[in-house]
């Protein structure tokens, strides 16, 4: 049981952020294609809150903000501003994904299975929000490239 508790010990929630950013980009690109994606029964409730363009912009904005959050972690001068923006963006992203999951599940009966994958990404974003660690915001003493070189694992031959 102890091992199972520790299975996520070395994992980083940044993976969830990258995964959600990628999913948001694909959502945005798909919704931006010519044609009415939201017209079908699968997106009935999402269509009540906005059409293709609105949702494409919303997902595109989430992707850009998430990537900016990761890229700008060590660039921002004000620590407090960085913590507040980080927490705000991760909370908004998690909230939007949860909302979309709920709307996809409510659309029809039996519920659409693709909402399962959406729910997984929403859970990943809540993990990112709840496991938030402001230590990432501290600037590294050396250049990142040098640090990466220093911390590269040495290959160990396994017999």
């Amino acid at each position: 049981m102890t091992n199972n508790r520790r299975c996520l010990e070395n994992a980083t929630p940044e993976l969830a952020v990258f995964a959600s950013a990628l999913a948001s980009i694909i959502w945005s690109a798909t919704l931006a294609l010519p044609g009415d994606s939201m017209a079908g029964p699968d997106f009935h409730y999402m269509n009540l809150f906005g059409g293709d363009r609105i949702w494409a912009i919303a997902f595109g904005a989430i992707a850009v903000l998430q990537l900016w959050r990761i890229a700008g972690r060590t660039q921002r001068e004000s620590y407090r501003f960085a913590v507040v923006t980080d927490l705000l963006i991760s909370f908004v992203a998690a909230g939007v994904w949860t909302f979309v999951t709920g709307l996809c599940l409510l659309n029809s009966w039996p519920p659409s299975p693709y909402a399962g994958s959406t729910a997984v990404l929403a859970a990943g974003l809540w993990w990112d929000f709840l496991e938030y660690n402001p230590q990432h915001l501290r600037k590294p003493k050396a250049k990142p490239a040098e640090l990466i070189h220093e911390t590269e694992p040495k290959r160990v031959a396994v017999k």
Partner: protein
Amino acid sequence: MTAMIISERLSTLGRYGDTTPATIASIMSSFLWAMCLAFPGTLIGPVGVGRPTYKHMYEVADEPTWIVIFSSIFLLQLWRIFCHQKVGNRLYVYLLEIGIKGWAAIIWTFIALACMIAQYPPAAAMSDAIVIAGLCWWDFLRCEPRPERCTNCFNRNCRSSCPYVIGAACHDSGHT
């Protein structure tokens, strides 16, 4: 500059990041797919009965078969997550693990592509299945025989295989 930082972090994450969350994502997603398909009502069925998004999936197998396939991914990967530290480094274990990861990656890729090309405009919500498929392939390609020692300090009892965390101290031994 921003693109460089993102690509650098993505590259470091891809090479050294822990792939356990990818396995867990596949487990959760398979479970939810199997559960949704098991509800009364037909999702994957002939034209006019099932939903058009899943028509290519129906050409390969019917709904009960897909429930079995998703359940197999869910159960096998869950079993690997729970038991991998009990069986040690054996060649057959490695082959079994890589087989399960490959099976999950192939199934998720097929589902994502089949549902995306089923209609135009494609179902936007299948984007998440594409991401799950990508995570499964990453998990598959990173699969290697589990090292018995820490890759940083060579300590047999060290659990800090986290060189990905730049500038932060590792859990046990304090190496960075």
